[in-house]
């Protein structure tokens, strides 16, 4: 099991704050992708929080939009919008809703319906190439999302166009809403599947920040192929009683006591 450092715990603390403030949210799927977005925004993505539409920026699409709290805390931390917005998420008139939308500074595509982000990212990657921009496109998919056929349509297209500026990451926490991925819709060996669909594939512990750094440092893996990074993660990572528990996929009534319990669990790591 990968230990979480101070920054990872801090970001999870912000997620708990947002859950408590908004009174609801997707929990497990946000907690599983914290290190992925953390390393991307801290060290990899070329973005300008004070100029979100800078043309040469890298694009990041959270295709598994329900994990948005994991993205929101990063965008707030980077200064795309005030941190106080986290505490109002999902409230009437709030900037932040239960899925990312493009009116939020730093959000490139409105997602939430699964199986859309990769395809949009393909268009962005093609555009970058055609416009001779250095922009790269990073898309995070959930493994439950891989049930959608549009993902596999997109992978064929990305490979055909040799989109080496496209990086597809799977937040492979092995769980989906109903339960374990292998029971709901077994995906089989993901590295083999992604390779067969034309990607250069890497696997990584999605909570190991150094391992993530190393993988990102090696991009593109193949100058003629899109890169797929299978990030092995734990749904609910960091809060012991949330981990690998499908009932923590989403909480519609999130009370202060629950937040206190989660904070206590986070402190004991």
């Amino acid at each position: 099991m990968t230990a979480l450092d101070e920054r990872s715990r801090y970001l999870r603390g912000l997620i708990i704050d947002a859950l408590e403030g908004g009174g609801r949210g997707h929990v497990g799927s946000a907690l599983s992708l914290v290190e992925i977005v953390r390393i991307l925004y801290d060290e990899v993505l070329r973005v300008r929080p004070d100029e979100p539409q800078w043309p040469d920026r890298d694009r990041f699409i959270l295709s598994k939009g329900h994990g948005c709290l994991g993205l929101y805390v990063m965008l707030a931390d980077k200064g795309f919008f005030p941190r106080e917005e986290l505490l109002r998420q999902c409230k009437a008139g709030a900037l932040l809703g239960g899925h990312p939308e493009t009116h939020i500074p730093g959000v490139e595509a409105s997602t939430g319906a699964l199986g859309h982000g990769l395809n949009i990212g393909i268009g962005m990657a093609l555009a970058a190439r055609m416009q001779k921009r250095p922009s790269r496109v990073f898309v995070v998919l959930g493994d439950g999302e891989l049930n959608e056929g549009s993902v596999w349509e997109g992978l064929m297209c990305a490979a055909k166009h040799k989109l080496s500026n496209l990086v597809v990451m799977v937040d492979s926490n092995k769980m989906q809403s109903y339960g374990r991925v292998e029971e709901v819709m077994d995906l089989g060996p993901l590295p083999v599947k992604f390779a067969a669909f034309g990607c250069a594939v890497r696997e990584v512990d999605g909570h190991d920040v150094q391992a993530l750094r190393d993988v990102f440092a090696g991009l593109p893996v193949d100058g003629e192929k899109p890169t797929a990074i299978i990030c092995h993660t734990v749904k609910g990572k960091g809060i012991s009683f949330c981990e690998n528990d499908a009932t923590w996929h989403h909480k519609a009534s999130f009370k202060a006591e629950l937040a206190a319990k989660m904070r206590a669990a986070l402190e004991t790591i």
Partner: protein
Amino acid sequence: MRQQALDMVHELARRDSRVVFIGSDLGPGVLEAMRQEFPDRFFMEGVSEANIIGMAAGLAMDGYIPYVNTIATFLTRRCYEQLAIDLCLHNLPVRLISNGGGMVYAPLGPTHLATEDLAIVRALPNMSVVAPADETEMIRMMGASLDLPGPLYIRVGKGNEPVVTGHIPGFTFGKAVELRSGRDVVLISTGAQTGQTLKAADLLAETGVDAGLLHLPTVKPLDRDAVLSAAVGTALLVSVEEHTLIGGLGSAVADLLADAGVLKPLLRLGLPDAYPTGYGSQEYLLGQAGLLPAQIAAQVQERLAILS
């Protein structure tokens, strides 16, 4: 009509470097001249409509104006969520050139008949919807389409429709075209059905019925002023469409009249709430639905007789 639409994509690509073309798995040689001239802006992406719409959205987000072409049923039903979210929610300038609106693919059966396309695309916020009557109008509409904000659905007829709008200059989105004035009844139609409806108006004139014809190339946004002024000046409105009666042109007109508080008899002619059966030709299926000129005229006369 489709050929003119595609030729215009090539022409627009010459005029504007933002224009790209995306097809699914179209016939061999489609837009070959454009592919030769602009290989970087020509895409043929296979039988994968969901991916194509998402890809078009991504290109549009970074400044391109994609013109997407495939068969109407696949461009609507198959990827409806992509139309709703990728294109309409993001309000992107993607143009959908939709082959075979209505009964065009009659011999191929109901899997290929786009009889509810106008209803479902019209229901999407930000989507504009057009159905040109003939190839001249298609060319004018395409010429005007470049800078239209937001997504656009273009219903394409079979081709070789009678040219009934050749004398109309230019094209303005959202504007109706009065093809014939008349006081006894005003027929309202869109798309290729306008040609049939004009013939029906001629037949009515021969029997002494003064029939007007208002052509609505833009189904959304509907030309409110034109429809309301037609309603004021006549005893009967008749909508004619090669489309299910649920949610298409006739529904749009009825909504408009109801919302404006205008009480006016409205006869809606279109397809019944049923999958067409039998194959044959487009004309054969239109005849089954009572949408040939003589049938339209007869139904109008019947309604006028009841009203009088």
